[in-house]
Each structure stands twice: as structure tokens, then as C-alpha cells.
């Protein structure tokens, strides 16, 4: 509450400043926004943005794609949530994607983004994201902009310290925020936290060809809370750094009880060493139930497999994997600079930002320059690993990103600003307000070995008066800054979807040329594909009725279906026969509880409809496709459960006027085109 009050005061101050500027004092407007700001963010009609940015949607469970510098929203990718726009989580093909050991969980909290890298630079293959609540890691394919895989993480609760990747995307890591009783009796009293609760960090291997993920091993840790993480790079490749809080091991009123100690930790993990132990067979396979969901691009269908065990490494038994670096006051961000030498810890409540040196860390470890132990693990001497501290950076440092010129940019939640400082000297160079209460920030290419710089985005937690009011619920606010010069300059303010946590940006030309335009109908291996109208048909298998339906401008085949009965389960497998870019068709039928699906060119998607009463059920195309889109419609007749209306289907041909198939059981399918 206190932090909020401070930020609002700052916010109001800024507001007054802007109000002052807007009166016609000469030169005034140049102080708030430089004269060329509009020009710098204006992307003319038909022109493209310079960067794609993949932005987490926070509590909406989605990922948004923005173009910069315009700030235009290009796409929303459903990941850990159903999506009414395209039927993700509603269609029979995609439901499996949201399966977990707890069943179907259609809404999670998506926090952080990691773009795949090769040698520490963006390679344009995949985007990883974490589901925070029911622990999961997702992989989005940058060719299709679709969720290709979701892997659940066992022995974890609050998957916040995720998904951060190693230099060549060897591993995606997932650290638990909540420690919980794992690998033993889980039904224990909460106040036995100190004895029974443990943490884990998971190392998920990534197949370099297919991207397929697999939990390679989990490292068992003391029962503390893991907040964020970053991999080492260059000289520090082989190490991983996790910020931790609650070294007090409190299980109630953490706001107070987990903020008691002067210092918490950054946990340094030597994952190359852990890998050696795994290869030497030192891990233990323990039972664990977790879902592994994978989309097959050929069949357009996701499958969910339940895994049964996971490999666990106990660093108490295996030396030289885990070390603790003292870090002031509940560190949040732990960020590694482009050279891989410096690790920046941001204590949310700290008055300084410590910068640690990887080479000093190595020296301290070999010289055993320790300051006691924590839960049996060596704690390094703060001064021995410290490169320096940024003095008086501002209030509430959270996250740090970097440019290619040796500068760091740290977001300050409490004082609502971004501070720019020199990584080598830790001198503050510049500061600029954000509106309001910034959380994450994103420099273009900021976490890579070669940041692109140029722009930086502030993703804020409080919006208040930035846009026209829209009731109590507001969009989140973000600002784009020009960081090409010595002074940071505000360029643009734009609303975002959900609550963005982290985001990463990649130059457009690294991925735009690979974007898929259509699914080739020849390569469609969906078990219910209809490759052409000649294959459109309706078949009954007991209570199941399968409709192989085709869609092409501007008709559905078949469009007259009779012989379906109350209590049937009708599967509409709709194949879009179009092979041209941007000609989706939609499908909706009255009364369906899964209301709609959307089908891309060459794709097959399935809507399950369970008619619960007799009647005439119109269906139609929901995506405006042509001048005759409104005519793209048809009827399903649903008869009583005991009816003997035969199953018939057709398009473009009618039975003799007034005839009722119910009275004529010899009537055959009349669908065939000449």
C-alpha cells in the first residue's frame, strides 16, 4: 500500500507537469515529448514495423504480439487459456493442449517470455512461456504463432522462476515459487514448513530439431521461494542464477516474515556439473504425474500423454552444484549482462543494486571464500563476489536489461522510473519517469549477447488516467522509449492486453519471412480430413455421428443433414479447402455448448455438438469470406431419439418437394456431385 501511495504521488506530480506543459508556453512540449516522437513511431499504412515483440498477458494466460515502434497489436496467441477467437481449447483438436494432472485447466497465469537463442543470439525458432499457477511450460512456434507444446512441471507450485533458457536453448529452466512438501508425505501441517517443505528447479531439455521438451532433471533445494532466473552466457555459460526470497522460511504473513533478514540469496547453479552427475547415473527416478501435450502439425491435432516419473538430483549428496550468493533484501530480478561477466541482483526493498562478478565468483569458490552455510550449502562472502553497487538508484528496483554499449536499464517500481547506469562503473547516467509503477522492462534484444538497443518498453502495473476511462477495469499501460542517444526519450504510450509481465522483442526480418501462410491440403493428415467435396460424408458409429464437411467460398458441403437424433454426439470435422492466404472459414451451429471454431486454409478442425432436443439447427460460416458469405449456411435436422429418419446428407440437390425421408427409408444419399 505504501509503495502504491508513493507511486501515485510521483504519478500525480508528473501529471501536473504534463498539464503545465500543455498550456502554450513556448518550448514546453519539447520537454515532455521531443518534437520528432510522432515521426519516430509512425509506421505508414502498408509499411511494417521494425520489431515483433512477444508480450506476456499475465492473468489472461495468453501472449500478445506487438509491432514496434508503432505499438500496434498484431496478434493474440492463446497459450494457457481458451480463446473464443479461434476455438483454441474449444475444438476437439486443441482441448488436449490444456490437459494437466489435475484435468482440464483452461485458464492460467502467463508470466515470462524467452525467445530461443543460438550462441546467445535470437534464432527465431520458438517462444517459451510459463504457466504460473498450475506449473507448466509452453513452446510457441514462430512459424505458425501457435502453441506447439505444453509440459507440466511436477514437484512445483507457482512456476514463477521460469522459463529462462541457456545460451543455445539446451535447457529451459522452471523454478518453483512456493516450496511444498515433495517426494514424501504431502499431507503435513503447514507449520512444519521448516522440516518438510522443499523447492525444486527443473532443467527441461529441448530437441534442437523439433523443439520437443523433456524434463531432463530436477534439482532439490532448500525450502525457500524462487523468484526469477537467468542463465550465464559466454564465460558464465554452464551456470544458472536464481533469485530467492523467504530465506526466513516463513509460511504465513510473508510480507513481514519473509522480509526480516538483511540479505536473501541468489542461488548459483553449476548445471554443467549437474549434467555430469546425470550422465554418471547419480539421479534418482521418482514417481511424478504430469501431462505432456504436443501438437502434431500434420494432423492439426494435440495429444496429451501422462508421464509417470522424473529424475531428481539431491545436491546435498552431490557436491559442487549449488552455491548461495548473499543479495540484499528479497531480490527480484537476477540479470546477466551481454558479456556474461556481470550478474545484477535487484533487491525489491534494497537501497542499492549489487553487481556481482562471475570471475570473482569462480575465484571465491576455488579459494573456498565462504561465509558459513545455508541449509548445508556454501554461502559466498558478499564482498568477495561483489563488483560494485549502484548507489541511490531509486526506489524498488525490479528488473535490469542491457544495451550493446555497456549500459544497464533498471525498472523502479516504487519510484515509477527507469534508471540508466553504466555496468562497469555502476554510475547512474540518466533517469526517466514511467506511468505508473513499472514492473518489467524490455530493451530490444536486452537479454541476449548482442542487444539491438534502439527502443525500450516499460510495462506498468498501474494505469489510472493514461487513457479514456472505461469503468473500473482498465487496460495496462506501456511506454516506448528511444534509447539510441545519451538521454532516454519517451516516444509512445499504448494500452496492452491482460497484465504484461516480461516481453522480448526480435527484429522483424528474423522471423517474418518464415511465417506460415496456409496449411497445404496435400499434407493434411487429419484422420477426418475431406480432401475435396467428393470425400464429404456423414457416418454413424453408434451414438456418434461424424460429419466430414468441407468449406470453400461460399458453401459448406454437406449443407443439408437429416437423420441425427437427440442424444447423438455430432462431430463436425470441417476442412477448409481454400489454399489462399488469409481465407479462413468459421463454423457455428445453434445451441452448441462449444460455440464456434475457426479453420485456416487447408486445415481440419472439429466441433462437437450434442443436440439435447428435437428441432432444426442452422449452421453457418462465421468468418466473412466473400460477397456470398451470408449465403454460406445450412441445416441439421434433429429428430427424436426413437425416430427412424435415415441418415442423409446433400448439397445443392433436393429430395422431391414435400417428401419426408422418415416415410421413405429407402432414400439414399443424394450428395454426390457429377
Amino acid at each position, binding site marked *: 500500500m505504501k509503495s502504491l501511495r508513493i507511486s501515485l504521488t510521483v504519478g500525480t506530480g508528473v501529471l501536473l507537469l504534463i498539464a503545465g506543459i500543455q498550456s502554450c508556453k513556448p518550448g514546453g512540449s519539447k520537454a515532455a515529448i521531443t*518534437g520528432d516522437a*510522432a515521426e519516430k513511431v509512425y509506421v505508414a499504412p502498408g509499411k511494417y514495423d521494425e520489431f515483433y515483440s512477444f508480450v506476456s498477458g499475465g492473468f489472461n494466460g495468453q501472449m500478445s504480439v506487438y509491432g514496434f515502434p508503432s505499438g500496434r497489436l498484431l496478434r493474440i496467441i492463446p497459450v494457457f487459456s481458451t480463446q473464443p477467437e479461434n476455438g483454441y481449447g474449444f475444438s476437439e483438436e486443441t482441448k488436449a493442449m490444456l490437459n494437466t494432472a489435475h484435468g482440464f485447466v483452461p485458464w492460467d497465469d502467463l508470466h515470462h517470455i524467452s525467445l530461443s537463442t543460438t550462441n546467445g543470439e535470437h534464432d527465431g525458432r520458438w517462444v517459451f512461456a510459463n504457466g504460473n499457477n498450475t506449473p507448466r511450460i509452453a513452446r510457441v512456434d514462430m512459424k505458425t504463432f501457435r502453441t506447439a507444446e505444453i509440459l507440466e512441471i511436477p514437484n512445483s507450485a507457482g512456476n514463477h522462476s521460469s522459463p529462462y533458457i541457456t545460451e543455445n536453448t539446451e535447457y529451459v529452466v522452471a523454478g518453483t515459487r512456493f516450496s511444498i512438501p515433495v517426494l514424501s508425505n504431502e499431507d503435513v501441517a503447514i507449520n512444519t514448513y521448516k522440516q518438510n517443505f522443499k523447492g525444486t528447479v527443473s532443467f527441461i531439455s529441448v530437441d534442437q530439431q523439433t523443439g520437443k521438451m523433456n524434463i531432463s532433471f530436477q534439482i532439490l533445494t532448500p525450502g525457500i521461494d524462487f523468484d526469477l532466473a537467468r542463465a550465464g552466457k559466454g564465460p558464465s555459460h554452464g551456470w544458472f542464477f536464481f533469485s530467492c526470497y523467504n530465506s526466513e522460511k516463513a509460511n504465513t504473513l510473508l510480507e513481514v516474515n519473509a522480509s526480516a533478514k538483511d540479505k536473501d540469496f541468489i542461488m548459483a547453479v553449476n548445471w554443467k556439473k549437474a549434467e555430469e552427475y546425470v550422465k554418471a547415473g547419480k539421479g534418482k527416478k521418482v514417481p511424478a504425474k504430469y501431462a505432456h501435450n504436443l501438437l502434431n502439425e500434420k494432423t492439426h491435432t494435440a495429444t496429451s500423454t501422462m508421464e509417470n516419473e522424473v529424475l531428481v538430483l539431491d545436491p546435498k549428496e552431490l557436491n559442487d552444484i549449488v552455491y548461495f550468493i548473499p543479495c540484499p533484501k528479497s531480490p527480484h530480478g537476477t540479470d546477466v549482462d551481454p558479456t556474461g561477466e556481470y550478474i545484477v541482483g535487484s533487491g525489491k526493498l534494497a537501497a542499492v543494486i549489487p553487481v556481482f562478478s562471475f570471475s570473482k565468483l569462480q575465484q571465491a569458490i576455488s579459494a573456498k571464500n565462504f561465509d558459513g552455510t545455508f541449509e548445508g550449502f556454501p554461502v559466498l562472502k558478499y564482498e568477495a563476489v561483489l563488483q560494485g553497487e549502484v548507489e541511490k538508484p531509486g526506489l524498488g528496483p525490479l528488473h535490469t536489461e542491457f544495451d550493446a554499449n555497456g549500459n544497464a536499464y533498471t525498472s523502479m517500481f516504487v519510484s515509477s522510473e527507469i534508471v540508466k547506469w553504466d555496468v562497469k562503473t555502476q554510475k547512474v547516467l540518466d533517469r526517466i519517469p514511467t506511468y505508473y509503477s513499472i514492473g518489467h522492462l524490455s530493451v530490444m534484444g536486452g537479454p541476449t549477447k548482442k542487444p539491438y538497443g534502439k527502443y525500450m518498453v516499460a510495462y506498468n502495473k498501474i494505469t489510472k488516467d493514461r487513457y479514456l476511462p472505461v469503468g473500473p477495469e482498465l487496460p495496462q499501460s506501456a511506454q516506448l522509449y528511444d534509447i539510441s542517444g545519451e538521454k532516454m526519450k519517451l516516444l509512445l504510450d499504448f494500452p496492452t492486453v491482460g497484465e504484461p509481465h516480461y516481453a522480448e522483442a526480435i527484429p522483424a526480418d528474423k522471423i517474418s519471412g518464415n511465417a506460415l501462410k*496456409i496449411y497445404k491440403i496435400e499434407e493434411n493428415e487429419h484422420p477426418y480430413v475431406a480432401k*475435396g*467435396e467428393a470425400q464429404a460424408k456423414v457416418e454413424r458409429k453408434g451414438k456418434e455421428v461424424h460429419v466430414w464437411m468441407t468449406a*470453400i*467460398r461460399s*458453401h459448406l458441403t454437406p449443407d443439408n443433414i437429416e437423420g441425427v437424433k437427440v442424444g447423438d454426439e455430432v462431430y463436425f470435422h470441417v476442412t477448409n479447402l481454400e489454399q489462399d*492466404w488469409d481465407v479462413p472459414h468459421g463454423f457455428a451451429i445453434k445451441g452448441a455448448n462449444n460455440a464456434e471454431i475457426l479453420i485456416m486454409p487447408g486445415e481440419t478442425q472439429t466441433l462437437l455438438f450434442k443436440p439435447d432436443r428435437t428441432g432444426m439447427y442452422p449452421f453457418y460460416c462465421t468468418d466473412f469470406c466473400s460477397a456470398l458469405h451470408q449465403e454460406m449456411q445450412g441445416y441439421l435436422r434433429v429428430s427424436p431419439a426413437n425416430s427412424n429418419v435415415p441418415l442423409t446428407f446433400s448439397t445443392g440437390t433436393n429430395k422431391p418437394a414435400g417428401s419426408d425421408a422418415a416415410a421413405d427409408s429407402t432414400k439414399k444419399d443424394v450428395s454426390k456431385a457429377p
Partner: protein
Amino acid sequence: MKSSIFALALLLSLVALTSCGGDGSDSTEKTASTETTSTSGQEVHGDEVKPSDVTLTTPLNQEWVSDGKGIYDVKCQGCHKLSDERVVGPGWKGVTERREPHWIMNMITNVDMMLEKDPEAQKLLEQCLVRMPNQNLNRDQARHVLEFMRSNDGVK
């Protein structure tokens, strides 16, 4: 939508300009009015098929006919019957007598160009009211469909 928002922004900036007596923000106006509208990523279909690119021979190449039939079933049959009946598009009966071979192939591989330039194609659009879709056939596939059309028209 975006451009109207920009127009609004421009308007507002002009209002600001008039009320404040000017301070050099007319550079924004200039930039806006000289900005050219263009598309950075025009869709590219096949190259235009010239009359000399197509040679018709008899007897028909039966492999092509059968390949063309396969393509027809998946990608064309939804709109074109093999009789002279028009459904979404015209029936194919007699099409090889009505149209030049390169015209047919351009309709298949370069439909956007044809609908923009070719008066006959434009007439068909007026009749059918549905733009013929680009079904993503390459030139060889289009040639095989043409062979199937010839077969449908009785050429041996």
C-alpha cells in the same frame, strides 16, 4: 481505422498549432502528406504464362490427365462442375474451346492479375460475384489440370 486515428491526431496537432501560434510542428504535417502508401509484402503468385509457354499435343498425356483429375477433386470441384452448369464458378464443359490455353493457366496460377487486367476474367467475376481463389497450384500442376480439361472436352 489506424489512418483515421492518425488523421485525428493530425487534426488535433493542427488545432494546437493554430491556437499556439506555431512552433515548428508543421514538420509533422509535411511528413504525413508526403508519406507514400505502399505495401511492403505484396503477395507473389506465379509468373505470367505467355502463349508460347504452352504447347498442346495429342494424344493426351494420360499421367497429366490423371494428376489433373486428382487436383480437381481436392481443389476445384467445390466450385466447378464438369458439365456446363454454373455453381459457384462456370462449368468446365467446353472451356478449352472457349479459352486460350495460356488464359486458363493464368486464371489458375495468376488469378489476381487476371481479375485486375483481363476483361473476360472481370466479366466472369461480375457474373459469379465470388473472386476465384488462388488455390496455390504451380505451373506444372496448372498444366496438368488443363490436360484434364481437354480430356473432359473429348480430346483423346
